[in-house]
């Protein structure tokens, strides 16, 4: 018998009945479920607040939005990854031009590409919030469609750390589900989210107008759109947590 066979036998031979408290497990499970739902509700409220503040970049009418295709500014390519907290908006139309490069995520919906770009916003009550991040689509002719605008609803949009995170709001997956996305301010080289005990790495791209702003999103293959993250961290190039 080899060492591994012995080890295998020993591992099984020492199994024992456990005394876990199922009532306590279910009580804590319900509490966790409620917290997750509350978190989702807060995110939705945040989105509504953003609309109420009159974010100019967003028209609240549902329906396919278009950005004047024009010059799809330069295209940044993606790097890798990570996840966390959130705020989001329903599909809208933005009349604004992207600020800086349009980031191509590499995700395709037929001929359309999932892109992310910053737009200027103006919220009188929030003088330090001047940019919002759009999850949009770019058609082959360069036309940009805005699906989701994400912006801070307090403080400064350049505060170091994570800002709002956008989650797809559809209850069921669609052909154009929006990947979980957001931005981080700081020298992040990796962004990693946790969901249900699993770690998922985000794709990253630096914003052309401010390299401290790191746009990130999660590939829908690794994180189902709309799935709430349990946590998110950023690490610098040396692997230190930011």
């Amino acid at each position, binding site marked *: 018998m080899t060492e591994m066979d012995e080890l295998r036998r020993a591992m099984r031979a020492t199994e024992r009945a456990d005394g876990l408290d199922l009532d306590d497990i*279910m009580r*804590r499970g319900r509490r966790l479920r409620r917290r997750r739902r509350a978190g989702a509700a807060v995110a939705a409220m945040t989105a509504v607040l953003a609309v109420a503040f009159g974010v100019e970049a967003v028209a609240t009418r549902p329906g396919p939005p278009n950005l004047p295709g024009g010059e799809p500014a330069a295209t940044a390519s993606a790097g890798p990854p990570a996840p966390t907290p959130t705020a989001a908006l329903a599909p809208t139309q933005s009349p604004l031009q992207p600020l800086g490069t349009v980031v191509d995520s590499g995700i395709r919906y037929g001929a359309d590409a999932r892109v992310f770009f910053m737009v200027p916003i103006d919220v009188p009550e929030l003088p330090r919030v001047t940019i919002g991040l759009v999850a949009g689509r770019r058609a082959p002719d360069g036309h940009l469609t805005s699906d989701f605008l994400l912006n801070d609803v307090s403080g400064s949009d350049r505060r170091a750390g994570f800002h709002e995170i956008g989650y797809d709001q559809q209850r069921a997956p669609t052909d154009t589900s929006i990947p979980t996305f957001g931005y981080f301010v700081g020298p992040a080289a990796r962004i990693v989210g946790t969901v249900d005990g699993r770690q998922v790495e985000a794709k990253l791209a630096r914003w052309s107008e401010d390299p401290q702003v790191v746009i990130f999103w999660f590939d829908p293959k690794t994180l189902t759109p709309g799935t709430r993250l349990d946590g998110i961290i950023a690490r610098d190039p040396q692997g230190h947590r930011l």
Partner: protein
Amino acid sequence: MARGDAEFVEFARACSGRLTHAAFLMTGNHHHAEDAAQTALVRTYASWSRIRNGDPYGYARSVLVNHLVDTWRRPIREYPSDDLPERSGGDLAEEVATRRWLVTALGTLTARERAVVVLRHYFDLPEAQVARELDVSVGTVKSTSSRALEKLRTAGLSAPRPQETCR
């Protein structure tokens, strides 16, 4: 009790012992193992409606392993423990000896080596799945597993054999 809850209770009763034991093999500490198994089941129950028709056991196992891996990444050291649980039936002396051997053997391995050994040889998962659950490459699983085995060989550890007669 709702039907989903009844299903969860049945599921938890069936697998909690195995999850707890796996956590014990990975930490060498009964208290930490019970905490980890409890945490895995709490999260599993919180997501029960979403996962119950899929692979809830795989989900719980994955949560357990990742929870332990996250714990290791924090500056917390864990040490093998000699405390022995109460157990009825079987040859207690033999089991005590086997458990001591097991704790000593696994204690020679690093946290990641233990995780690989437990996933591969306790849960009998294929290497590709171990790699997915630990978020490492298949090559890392192979090399880690090989290193773990080598350590066990070098340590010259040999599991106590069941005693056939005792006069």
